[in-house]
């Protein structure tokens, strides 16, 4: 199967997982995206995207031990797979190629 391209929000979630490893889970991913981008992100949207990326085998998940802070519930922690890293690079490369030569036109000189 060829490496898939990532959508806009999928890319943000995958990059957040890469930044937060090995402590990437729903809340920490939501905080990272909110802190680094002007986007308002809901937990439900983050989890829906995590499930989709896991289905595509771009992320791997494991459950941590339950903690009292979380009402006795465990964390579902995510890491990038080799295919996930390749998908990030491929998607970024595609955007970079499309941006080539447009710096002036788009006002990013």
């Amino acid at each position, binding site marked *: 199967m060829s490496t898939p391209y990532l959508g806009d929000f999928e890319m943000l979630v995958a990059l957040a997982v890469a930044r937060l490893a090995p402590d990437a889970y729903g809340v920490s991913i939501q905080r990272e995206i909110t802190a680094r981008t002007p986007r308002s992100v809901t937990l439900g949207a983050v989890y*829906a995207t995590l499930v989709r990326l896991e289905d595509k085998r771009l992320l791997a998940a494991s*459950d941590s031990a*339950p903690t009292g*802070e979380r009402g006795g519930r465990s964390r579902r922690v995510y890491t990038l797979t080799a295919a996930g890293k390749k998908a990030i690079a491929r998607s970024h490369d595609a955007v970079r190629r499309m941006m080539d030569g447009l710096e002036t036109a788009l006002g990013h000189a």
Partner: protein
Amino acid sequence: MREPAPLTRGDARLLAAVTWLVPAPYGDAIAGDLAETWAAGESDAHASDAIDAVGQCWGALGARVVTRHRAPLAVGAVFGACTHLGAWALWRAILAHVPLRADHPPHLAWMLGTSIVAAAIAALGWQLGSAMRARTAPPESLA
């Protein structure tokens, strides 16, 4: 970030509802994440957060079933019924147990909208199924 606060009994009951309503195996993790943000004081809109998480996850599950299993006839009815039932159960749990803040009322419009859309999807699923069965049935003279 504010100091973490202990979860109230209402919070715990709402989290239990989320755990039950979100498709496995994510319910427990999502309920834990909501508990963590509430305890840290990052969100005052508890009921809205929970409803949103449940709705998003069921939406994602429905899309996954349609694309992976290619079952458009049955899926409309099943997904519509599940969404409706889930939203109704969560709504009941919120009304019964959670002290709601006056400036964050539950999204009644969201609930009504979801119910109407769910009913429409279910009806469409049944209509399509009936139409397909009628088209593929043998003529009466051959039956």
